[in-house]
């Protein structure tokens, strides 16, 4: 299992206030790692430290198996990134900006620029200076710039910021292609949980500068599996019925009236029948999927208020 990125107790303090504390995260080669966290959690700061824009106060970063120092420039050539908003030389055209980028990175494949523009579906922009671009177009150009040199690691800070729903879908597909066909490892941060849920392999949850949990999405799905939820006004009796007649103890009571059954060995119709035959008044019952959103909010609210 090679890790393309590892941090070890990474911390950053600005003027005495710690904005990132003891973050130890690991990104495997070829996977998509989703960074989740509320505003101000420290995601962008961590990404800046990974690209050497900000120097950590303590802790280590290891990229591609080598330690990242203030002078390790060769490593930077293997990373493509968007941090916060993508910035360009506004008076030049998109193509000029990309050509400059390739020159600086030492990448000489002429077709790479066309490929990149095609992959992000940015068309009809020849001759237009970047200052005339809309936000969505700039965002796409930023992604194109990050992927143009086919780097081994992509660091994307909220890449779908400002994109329309079609754009979001395209980028999602693009990320899948990059990860599977080109074997590029991707570190992506976003607020849109639904999006992260669809692309990421592993998620890391950050709050107040601390990495609260780092877990693979598989595990999240397993722990937050489907459940059957029903409403009744006599929860105690319902629980009793469930454990005695059906042998189900993996239940959770929400509020005063709702019960969730995580054990799906009994199909819903039979569950319903058993409950009713035992005089439990079931007012509503259905099968649901717990979403990443609830897991995430649960993690954040577990002991802390969000920022």
């Amino acid at each position: 299992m090679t890790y393309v990125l590892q941090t070890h107790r990474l911390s950053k303090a600005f003027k005495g206030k710690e904005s990132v504390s003891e973050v130890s995260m690991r990104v495997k080669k070829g996977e998509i790692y989703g960074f989740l966290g509320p505003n101000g959690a420290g995601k962008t700061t961590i990404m800046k430290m990974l690209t050497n824009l900000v120097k950590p106060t303590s802790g280590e970063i290891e990229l591609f198996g080598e330690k990242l120092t203030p002078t390790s420039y060769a490593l930077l050539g293997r990373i493509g990134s968007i941090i916060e908003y993508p910035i360009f030389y506004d008076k030049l055209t998109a193509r000029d900006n990309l050509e400059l980028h390739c020159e600086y990175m030492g990448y000489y494949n002429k077709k790479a620029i066309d490929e990149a523009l095609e992959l992000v579906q940015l068309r009809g922009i020849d001759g237009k200076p970047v200052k005339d671009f809309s936000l969505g177009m700039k965002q796409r150009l930023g992604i194109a710039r990050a992927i143009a040199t086919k780097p081994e690691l992509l660091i994307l800070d909220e890449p779908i910021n400002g994109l329309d729903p079609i754009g979001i879908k395209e980028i999602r597909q693009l990320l899948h292609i990059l990860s599977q066909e080109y074997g590029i490892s991707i570190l992506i941060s976003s607020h849109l949980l639904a999006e992260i849920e669809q692309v990421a392999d592993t998620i890391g949850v950050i709050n107040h500068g601390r990495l609260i949990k780092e877990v693979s999405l598989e595990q999240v799905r397993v722990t937050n599996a489907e459940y059957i939820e029903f409403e009744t006004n006599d929860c105690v009796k319902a629980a009793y019925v469930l454990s005695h007649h059906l042998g189900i103890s993996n239940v959770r009571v929400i509020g005063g009236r709702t019960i969730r059954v995580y054990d799906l060995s009994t199909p819903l119709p039979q569950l319903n029948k058993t409950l009713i035959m035992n005089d439990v008044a079931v007012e509503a019952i259905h099968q649901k999927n717990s979403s990443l959103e609830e897991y995430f909010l649960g993690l954040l609210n577990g002991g802390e208020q969000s920022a």
Partner: protein
Amino acid sequence: MACIFGLICLISFDPTESQELASYEKLFSVIDLLTRGTFIVFGAVLLARFIIEEYRTKSISVLFTYPISRKKLMIAKLIVVFSFTFLSIVLAELVVGLLMLAVNHSREFIHEKLTMDIVGRQALAILMNALAASFMSLIPLFFGMRKYSTSATVVASILIVFVVCGSTNDFSLNSIVAVPITLSWIGAIIAYASFRNIERKDII
């Protein structure tokens, strides 16, 4: 350059002022003054475009994620600004000087003989002054970097121009050798300070 030439012509043809430009030395010092003044400001504009504006628009954060040493990038920028200023000053003074000599040939308002000695001394003076002025033109970098403001840079350079290029009755601060030397050193130190620790600085 055309403006400088025009200005000098104007001064020299005014009969009441003709006493002022009666010698080659005075002629060249006027050319020198005006040229240096113009190009110190020009140097500050270059600084503003190449360095200050990159910091202001944060395109410097893109530049620093490239696999090239930050020191090299900064030094390259400073070298471009410095050489442009230096070459422009030298070239401008040469061109205007030659033009004035041509005019003098036909109009004869300077009644000295042009000897190689004078030419030699003037050439040396031009080079030394241009060198000093180019270093001085880096001083506005300090003022511009504080708030990443291009206007602060240019205003600072104008103030510097007032200091070194003002002259009254044949006397200017520039003639006290200590002044240009100190200012050049300050310029060089400011330039050095800008890239000395750049590897370790944070770009927010």
